[in-house]
């Protein structure tokens, strides 16, 4: 009697399945699934790392460099409070573009903004004020250290360029000198940062990663990413009306894009 009770229901179900309404429902479901897949694919494409970050201390010249690269003109600047981003065409003939992102350098903001953009970074330009370098070497090294031991940066290993800015001033240090001093300072920082008291939630402040090779003095060649040093001048040696001296930087950007 149970089977007899079920059979008319099964019949009705079978009739329904062959009906036109069910077919349209199926088609709709497939359309939704296909759209979803396409959307995910596009998202994946877009979120692949296409950004070049401009980092550095306050007053290093990042915003002026950003303005010069994008528009070629000199602009007055103030301390940045937030990031600016724009598409940059690497060269006249090719159509490859990268997204240049100018991050604020102020102490209270820099790490926050770095957190936000580090995953999307294909390359990083670390801008250094060559004139004030002697005075600020410890702060420059600390920021560089924080960038280099970051787990996302170590994983993605974006190309790193250290741009020694403000070369138009006569007292500016050369890129070679800056490299030597930074290597020495980072060597010391490795020791002091790992010896700092552990953080409140248990994670060490120096980061779990060790910078460079243990036992040997720190060298930029020990890093997993490619590091280069260039000299540049965002203001330009001919004053505000003239061109900026950014050739080396632009060549590197072309290489990296």
């Amino acid at each position, binding site marked *: 009697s149970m089977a007899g009770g079920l059979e008319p229901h099964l019949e009705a179900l079978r009739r329904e399945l062959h009906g036109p309404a069910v077919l349209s429902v199926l088609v709709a479901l497939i359309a939704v699934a296909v759209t979803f897949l396409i959307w995910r694919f596009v998202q994946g494409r877009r979120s692949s790392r296409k950004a070049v970050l401009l980092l550095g201390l306050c007053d290093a010249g990042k915003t002026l460099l950003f303005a010069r690269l*994008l*528009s070629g003109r000199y602009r007055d600047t103030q301390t940045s409070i937030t990031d600016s981003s724009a598409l940059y065409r690497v060269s006249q003939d090719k159509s490859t573009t990268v997204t240049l992102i100018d991050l604020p350098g102020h102490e*209270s903001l820099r790490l926050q903004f770095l957190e936000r953009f580090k995953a999307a970074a294909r390359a990083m330009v670390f801008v250094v004020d060559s004139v004030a370098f002697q005075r600020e070497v410890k702060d420059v090294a600390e920021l560089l250290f924080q960038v280099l031991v970051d787990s996302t940066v170590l994983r993605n290993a974006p190309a790193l360029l250290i741009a020694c800015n403000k070369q138009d001033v006569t007292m500016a240090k050369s890129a070679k000198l800056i490299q030597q001093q930074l290597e020495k300072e980072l060597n010391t920082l490795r020791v002091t940062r790992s010896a700092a*008291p552990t953080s409140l939630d248990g994670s060490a402040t120096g980061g779990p990663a060790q910078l460079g090779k243990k036992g040997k003095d720190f060298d930029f060649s020990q890093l997993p990413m490619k590091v280069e040093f260039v000299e540049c001048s965002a203001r330009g040696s001919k004053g505000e009306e003239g061109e900026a001296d950014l050739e080396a930087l632009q060549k590197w950007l072309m290489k990296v894009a």
Partner: protein
Amino acid sequence: MLDFFTIFSKGGLVLWCFQGVRGPAATAPVNALIRSVLLQERGGNNSFTHEALTLKYKLDNQFELVFVVGFQKILTLTYVDKLIDDVHKEFRDKYRNEFQQKGALGLLNGTFDFKDDFMRLLRDAEESSKVRAPTVMKTFEQSLKSQKTVKCMIETRGEKPKEKVKNKKNKGSKKDGTEAVAAPSKASAGDKQLSAAGDKEELTKDEILQKNREEFFRRHMKAGEKSRSPKPDAQKEKGKKPRVWDLGNSNAKVLDYSNSATNGSAEACPVEEFDPDMALGDKNREPGRLYDLEYESDDEAEEEKVVQNPSKPSVKKGGLGGMFGMLKGLVGSKSLTREDMDPVLEKMKDHLIAKNVAAEIAVQLCESVAKKLEGKVMGTFTTVTSTVKQALQEALVQILQPQRRVDVLRDVMDAQRHRRPYVVTFCGVNGVGKSTNLAKISFWLIENGFSVLIAACDTFRAGAVEQLRTHTRRLNALHPPESHGGRTMVQLYEKGYGKDAAGIAMEAISYGRHGTGAGGCPGAAPSFTLPPVLPARNQGFDVVLVDTAGRMQDNAPLMTALAKLIAVNAPDLVLFVGEALVGNEAVDQLVKFNKALADHSMAQTPRLIDGIVLTKFDTIDDKVGAAISMTYITSKPIVFVGTGQTYCDLRSLNAKAVVAALMKA
């Protein structure tokens, strides 16, 4: 009048600038404004003073612009606020296209030729302020008095000048009203009236007579009443009877209204309907057991309910407009207004205060966040609550980020290279844990291979020197000289009780520089010849830790003594030790300590507190607000956090963890 007016984007590009008559370059004051106000979340008040200039600013959060105007501090210009608002509106409308382009390209490539519009707006603003100039006093020629002839001012009875009729009529009605008051002094009233009226009015003879008659009669009536009134008093006075209160005379029996029959007898009280179920309530309870409090575990749902309730009545009121606003909010083109944010900010402020953030700081923080969010366009499917929470979280992380490098070991190495000890001074109020944390920090330094000299400058508290001596002994037991190449890693420099703390500190530092004891810089030969009195090898200490007595911030002589110690000895690091349990007191303590240090210093840039040690952190669960209060007030970093009483309980601050604990519901 204005020194400068700048318009720049939040990303740092100056879009347009106006330099006034003798203004210096605008960049330095504006940078100071950005660093001290906007980045430290003090944006509640919209004006800022920098040297000789006052700066007023306005934020446009929709297009990420900042408008700043600067003028001399001594001037008080009333039109500045209006000018900023007008310029903001006009600039935004004129260049709307450039702003709405994606990315910064619009700002980079656009030319902002705003000078003519600005000059026009400035002129309008200046003129509008002139119109509202204060009223000038009228001269004698302008007043009404000068227009009256001398003749009319002479009093003559009976004359009725024409223009006085109207006045008199009004005055007459007034006079009748006040006649009862003027009754007593009738004799001189007539004269008084005339003399008081003066040139204002004159009464005719008849009217005077009538008035006098009326007065006479009235006075007689009053006099009669007056003569009558003492009589009943006299009558009453004769027989003084005892006052009889209603129930006062009766004894207790009369006052007893209880039914004498009911007390004590059980049958007399009416039987009430007793329902045992209602009285006992829950039928399923176990007899005799005490149940726990039950509370809602779902806090999120409660929050949403509470927030939506204020918005619901507004939707009802708005009707169609409200619906449209809500739809706009869903689509993501709604801009935040103050009214939307206020209830959420109130809640966040209360939440922060509940987490032990000082009340005035919570208020200032919320004001600053409101200013930062006003006019901002919300993204798709974001609620007001989530936007405000996100902004507040970012602001808190920003405050906790150190404004300068926090790396004590690196600085000690530097001082080592210069052949002098690194001097750290600990100050704070009573009982916060200065000596305990000093011991912890010396343990940490010894672990890293630096030799420490502890200077016992607490010459007041009984047992302070003995406490430090015990710590020294223990630390030397933990790190004996044998394991560090024969040098004693820790030594105590003390001179007993009652002496001057600043003098002891100075002696300790010079002992630390040249004294006998631990070997200083390992393997470094001195590059200068020492005088023959001192031993040839430089045997100083790497770090000198100076322990001072605890003192209340209101105690002026003790604060002066501390300021003198710090000014005279010029330590490398001045650490303020504060406990995490402190609430609103933290603000007062830090402000007064800094003020005392600044007042008593002779130098151009006085030494203020350089860092904070937050102690007793293990006693608070997640009420970590004291960290915010202290860093907000001083804008100096928290260098160490003490989480217990053993030597290993020393941590460094993790801004994200603290903010997460703060924002947790």
